[in-house]
């Protein structure tokens, strides 16, 4: 199989090194190859789909290309391949740096410009022209209710989160192109700071502050809980730089709202991931246990609502 894939890749890239399958990637394969001295990464479809609303690899490649043209820090897109040994795939630059969240929050020191750099990339992403990416879906948090109902299990803590979100919705902002999963764990970081933004499969059109707040969700602080922005820094410089670049006036209160939304979304995400295992689509202990670890996220929802004065 590797030989077939190598041959197919060589028709596009010329002579390459032996492809090496990288660990991780629940729904897609990642292969490292070198071509002509250049470090490349092949992202190839896996067995199942991670989520109903994820982009196809073709569309993900188009978003990556648009981001690259807009000078967002991303791996340089190289080629889309419709049929790579039976599955779709694309090739991009393989950036050097750390992506594992747990290791990033333990960097000594964490690059102090990282929060500001995150804000800078997000501001560029939110300015991407929507007409360039006509396939992006409009998504709102109302979709979360539908996803929860599809799981079919009772989760009062998630219901409370959804109730609070309905009751406290801030004035609507015009939807922009959002990354959809902008957080530590999906960023390449080295000692100089942010090297690149990865994993564009959740890109869609949405309220920009929802995207801005996702990186604040406790699950993505990787144990460094006191640093609210992804376990790597304070949220204020991030917010301030984002407002400066976009001309928005996002305050902490609005960020708090979307932090709850981010947690509710991830709590439901844990359940839908477990469903992949339970329904037999993708049998895996890693997916199964998420059904139980979602209790952590539900606890955080309760904690956040308490701080909002709910009793």
């Amino acid at each position: 199989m590797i030989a077939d894939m190598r041959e197919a890749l060589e028709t596009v890239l010329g002579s390459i090194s032996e492809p090496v399958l990288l660990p991780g990637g629940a729904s897609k394969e990642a292969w490292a190859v070198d071509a002509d001295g250049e470090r490349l990464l092949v992202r190839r479809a896996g067995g199942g789909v991670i989520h109903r609303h994820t982009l196809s690899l073709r569309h993900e490649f188009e978003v990556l290309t648009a981001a690259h043209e807009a000078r967002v820090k991303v791996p340089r897109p190289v080629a889309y391949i419709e049929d790579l040994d039976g599955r779709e795939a694309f090739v991009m630059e393989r950036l050097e740096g750390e992506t594992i969240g747990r290791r990033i929050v333990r960097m000594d020191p964490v690059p102090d410009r990282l929060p500001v750099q995150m804000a800078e990339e997000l501001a560029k992403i939110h300015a991407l022209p929507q007409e360039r990416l006509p396939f992006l879906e409009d998504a709102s948090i109302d979709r979360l209710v539908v996803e929860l109902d599809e799981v079919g299990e009772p989760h009062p803590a998630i219901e409370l989160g959804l109730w609070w979100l309905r009751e406290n919705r801030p004035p609507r902002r015009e939807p922009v192109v959002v990354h959809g999963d902008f957080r530590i764990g999906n960023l390449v970081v080295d000692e100089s700071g942010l090297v690149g933004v990865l994993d564009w499969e959740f890109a869609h059109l949405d309220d920009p502050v929802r995207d801005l707040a996702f990186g604040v969700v406790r699950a993505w602080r990787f144990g460094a809980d006191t640093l609210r922005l992804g376990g790597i820094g304070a949220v204020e410089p991030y917010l301030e730089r984002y407002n400066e670049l976009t001309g928005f006036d996002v305050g902490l209160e609005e960020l708090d709202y979307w932090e709850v939304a981010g947690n509710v979304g991830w709590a439901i995400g844990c359940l839908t991931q477990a469903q992949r295992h339970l329904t037999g689509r993708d049998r895996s202990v890693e997916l199964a246990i998420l059904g139980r670890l979602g209790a952590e996220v539900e606890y955080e929802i309760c904690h956040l609502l308490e701080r909002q004065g709910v009793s």
Partner: protein
Amino acid sequence: MSERPTADELAEAIEEFLAGEILPTLDDHRARFRMLVALNALGIVRRELAKLPPEDDAAQREVAARIRTGDVPAGTLARVKADVTARLQIDSPRYLDRY
């Protein structure tokens, strides 16, 4: 309180992983033998779990449905949080130290 995966569904996932992914990679005959014994033990656990009565989630369903309609009297969050805490004491007890 009822949760998915259930204890048996978790044990089943472990069984599939050990039998399907780990056992075939074991070359050492002693390790292989002990893995087969472990799988046998896991089978006992599963059969025992299968005899337990299914958990009743009617109360949780009712609370969830009431919150959905906007009926959230004072004290609701405290009760829900106590339930989540009880689940965490099984699912991820050390997580509670983070607060």
